[in-house]
């Protein structure tokens, strides 16, 4: 394609076809077979009006919606080819619209299934000779990524992407233009932009944002204004001349490929082309920005140091190790959310343990984390296969931790970055180890940058970690690292450090760490992988930013200082652990449990305080003297206390009582199940929570893996009770010793018996009684 001049898309399809007689309820794509001559006439009208890219009439076609999807696509391509035949410059854009389904985790379309759906279309785009792929009207970044992956894996055609931004300048699922630019540039698409939803007037501001971030040509295909209803019909009111006027403004602000969407007609395109033709054209200048993104926002690496939370990494963390071994994702999620609340901007995710399947766990952790936090992730593994899977399903442009100067490392990591996009932490080490001088470390960084360039990866995507080695074994270690940072900054590299390594083997490590952190920032450090729960590190960061003009009016610092100031203690001395649990006071429960543990045995605290308090509130609930939210808050307070007590218990004293919980296949309601979980946990049961919408086979797998033979199933809808029956049948068939308790809004004791459940729990308290009874009977 010729990029050296402005290109013009055609305009609306559906709205024009309606004017040509498409009936309500009739789909535009059906006309590919029933009225091909009209589709060809539409394309011809746009080409005559001055468009040089036409969109095939394939927006709504996919394998799930149409059995004859290939026939429809072939016919659409035929219409486009007939219109383009004999014209000097008429490109055929194979049009790809959204699936209409929402991807997991919020929806139920698995990411790989979305990729496969799009792939089926992409293969046909290639087979029938499209000139480029246009992925359009996408309002979800994750679905956009699935479509782009499919296009890249099935074809070598240019890929154009336009998303739908709303009045607040974001996609329906939250991404802003900077985040989309990062994601799509990383994946190597050819042009990006916006279409539909807004009129040209509202898009002007968005075009400015794209111009700021994008190094790729920007596509702008607005509607003919915002829709209005007149005489019971939706109409678009911006006429051709007015439209052209706005498009001229858009061209001046950097719009490179211009056209229209709903409500625009060949007249709009003709007027636009005449008006815009005189506006000077230039491709956007390459932007030298280093950006990481999530599904909502981009984080730019630069003079303002970025904090990367290090807590999701099992090294030296027994609790996380235990969580990984037992597949407890909740623990990982809580670590992620707590770090986000503590103020980090990125989360490092490392789940490598020799005894677990790191590849599977990494995928689960990334999927779960990006469901609960919008922080961009730093994917951390030394196994390229683990990175490959994680990068594929990551909803954004990740930071990769890490590459080093060894050939195999560079080739493996850079080929992944080439495909999925990403910035990379580059460690200045290779086969011969870590150079002892700053110059030696910089030399490795430069070698890594040269190899990256051979993969088409710009130097700006590398963030060099010159490695901090402990000063306890080498007095010069910190000085070499600090000097490396200075030198790297001079050579145009951004830098990162795992700060806490510096104090390994020394007492009161935080004191060294925070001072070293301040020194490193002074030398120009851009990112720190650190523990945000250490006040000294946070002090250093806030103070540094305030002192270096990075914190306007010291607002962030003042907010931080206010928050960190000692507050009045939350628990008045009079509150006992028993009261704290009954009243659902989580903080007070933790404080009083800590106090109780100083003078009493852990088991005594559990059996003498926590359990009686829970029984008290549980009985009040059963007698309707307390309400469900109170019961839940008590259970949470008890759990918080229980966690502290557990740390003092020898491992052998753990109760050994466990329950598997799941909401059945097809049911996405998990509140009831979560209520049961928190109550069981507060009574000391180990709960394997499989989540919601869980297939029967997955429940059986959990029984096999954990050896736990008590299963709790929840269903809220009558439509999913058959799935519950199916799950029970499978469990009993595989192992008659498995006992299943059921509960949920639609169940009754009779219903439970009919589907062969072993127990029916009318509420969460009863499920605790059932579980206790079960363990009394089997012991």
């Amino acid at each position, binding site marked *: 394609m010729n990029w050296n001049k402005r290109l013009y898309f055609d305009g609306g399809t559906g709205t024009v076809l309606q004017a040509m007689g498409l009936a*309500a309820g009739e789909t535009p794509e059906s006309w590919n077979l029933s009225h091909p001559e009209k589709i060809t006439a539409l394309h011809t009208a746009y080409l005559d009006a001055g468009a040089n890219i036409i969109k095939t009439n394939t927006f709504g076609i996919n394998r799930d919606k149409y059995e004859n999807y290939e026939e429809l696509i072939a016919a659409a391509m035929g219409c486009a080819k007939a219109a383009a035949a004999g014209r000097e410059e008429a490109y055929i854009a194979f049009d790809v619209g959204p699936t209409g389904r929402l991807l997991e985790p919020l929806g139920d379309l698995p990411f790989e299934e979305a990729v496969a759906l799009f792939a089926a279309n992409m293969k046909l785009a290639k087979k029938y000779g499209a000139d480029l792929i246009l992925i359009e009207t996408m309002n979800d970044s994750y679905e956009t990524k699935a479509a782009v992956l499919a296009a890249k894996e099935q074809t070598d055609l240019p890929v154009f992407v336009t998303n739908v931004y709303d009045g607040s300048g974001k996609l329906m699922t939250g991404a802003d233009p900077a985040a989309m630019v990062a994601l799509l540039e990383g994946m190597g698409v050819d042009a990006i932009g916006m279409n539909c939803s807004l009129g040209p007037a509202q898009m002007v501001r968005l075009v400015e944002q794209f111009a700021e971030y994008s190094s790729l040509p920007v596509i702008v295909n607005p509607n003919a204004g915002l829709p209005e209803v007149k005489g019971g019909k939706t109409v678009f009111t911006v006429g051709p001349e007015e439209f052209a006027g706005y498009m001229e403004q858009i061209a001046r602000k950097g719009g490179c490929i211009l056209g229209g969407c709903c409500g625009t007609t060949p007249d709009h395109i003709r007027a636009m082309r005449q008006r815009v033709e005189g506006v000077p054209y230039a491709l956007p200048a390459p932007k030298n920005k280093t950006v990481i993104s999530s599904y909502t926002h981009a984080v730019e690496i630069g003079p303002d140091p970025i904090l990367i939370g290090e807590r999701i990494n099992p090294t030296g963390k027994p609790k996380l190790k235990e969580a990984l071994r037992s597949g407890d994702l909740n623990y990982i999620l809580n670590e992620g959310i707590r770090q986000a609340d503590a103020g980090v901007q990125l989360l490092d995710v490392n789940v490598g343990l020799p005894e677990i399947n790191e590849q599977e766990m990494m995928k689960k952790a990334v999927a779960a984390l990006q469901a609960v936090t919008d922080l961009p992730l730093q994917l951390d593994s030394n196994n390229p296969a683990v990175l490959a899977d994680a990068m594929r399903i990551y909803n954004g442009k990740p930071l990769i931790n890490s590459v080093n100067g060894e050939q195999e490392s560079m080739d493996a990591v850079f080929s992944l970055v080439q495909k999925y996009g990403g910035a990379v932490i580059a460690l200045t080490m290779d086969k011969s180890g870590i150079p002892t001088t700053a110059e030696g470390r910089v030399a490795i960084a430069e070698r890594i940058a040269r190899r990256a360039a051979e993969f088409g990866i710009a130097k700006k995507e590398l963030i060099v970690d010159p490695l901090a080695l402990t000063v306890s074994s080498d007095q010069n270690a910190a000085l070499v690292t600090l000097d490396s940072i200075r030198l790297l900054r001079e050579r145009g590299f951004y830098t990162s450090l795992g700060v806490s390594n510096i104090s390994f083997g020394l007492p009161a490590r935080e004191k060294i760490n925070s001072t070293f952190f301040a020194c490193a920032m002074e030398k120009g450090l851009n990112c720190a992988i650190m523990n945000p729960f250490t006040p000294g590190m946070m002090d250093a960061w806030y103070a540094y930013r305030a002192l270096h003009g990075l914190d306007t009016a010291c607002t962030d610092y003042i907010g931080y200082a206010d928050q960190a100031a000692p507050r009045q203690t939350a628990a008045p001395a009079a509150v006992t652990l028993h009261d704290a649990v009954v009243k659902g006071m989580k903080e007070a429960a933790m404080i009083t449990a800590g106090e109780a543990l100083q003078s009493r045995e852990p088991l005594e605290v559990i059996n003498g305080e926590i359990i009686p308090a829970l029984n008290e509130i549980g009985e009040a609930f059963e007698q309707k003297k307390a309400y469900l939210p109170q019961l*839940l808050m008590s259970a949470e307070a008890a759990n918080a206390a229980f966690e502290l007590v557990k740390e003092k218990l020898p491992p052998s004293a753990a109760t050994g009582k466990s329950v598997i919980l799941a909401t059945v296949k097809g049911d996405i309601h998990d509140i009831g199940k979560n209520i049961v979980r928190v109550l069981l946990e507060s009574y000391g049961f180990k709960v394997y929570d499989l989540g919601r919408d869980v297939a029967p086979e997955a429940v059986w797998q959990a029984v096999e893996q954990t050896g736990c033979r008590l299963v709790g199933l929840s269903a809220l809808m009558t439509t999913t009770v058959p799935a519950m029956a199916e799950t029970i049948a499978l469990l009993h068939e595989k192992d008659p010793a498995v006992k299943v308790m059921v509960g949920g809004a639609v169940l009754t004791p009779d219903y439970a018996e009919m589907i062969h459940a072993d127990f029916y729990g009318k509420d969460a308290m009863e499920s605790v009684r059932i579980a206790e009874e079960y363990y009394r009977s089997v012991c």
Partner: protein
Amino acid sequence: MMGELPTAALQANPRELAARLQSRLPVEGTEECLEELRKVVSCRYSFLRMPILRPAENTLDLGFGSFESKNLTKNLTGCEEAFLFAVTLGVGVDRLLTRLSALSPARHFITDALASALAEAACEEAEQRIKGELCCAPRFSPGYGDVSLELQAPLLNLLQGQKLGITLNQNLLMVPTKSITAIMGIKQ
């Protein structure tokens, strides 16, 4: 026709909220949960005014295919037109609920109850804006009475649910989960 509802315009009905919270007393923490919830609500709606066709006894056609329903036929007695509408609190609410589900069952429960009550309030507010001075029959939704849930797909299609961000999962449940579709007859 599409519109947005400012979050400030949505007030949960206290009685309904109490029922959803299963509590007759004020629940501690509700205010904080509401504040957190309001930050992520992005409420949109769309509606159409359609003629009511009655191709056969107890059979209706409101522009998204004909279907049988005694209940809705009765509900629409005396009406020749109906408003169809869809309203959603947006996918941010689902994200918040997912997050709370991992974080705190108590806050999850309270926030879910609040969100359901706000969705109901959004539906009320949308209804008021759509009908204006017109007198309307009580709202009816797919899944109520003998109106099949299967109608959700063609109804949302006609209402351009996709532009509101409303999708259906394989079990015909709407995602965002705090979304409502409704049919409302216009009394002459």
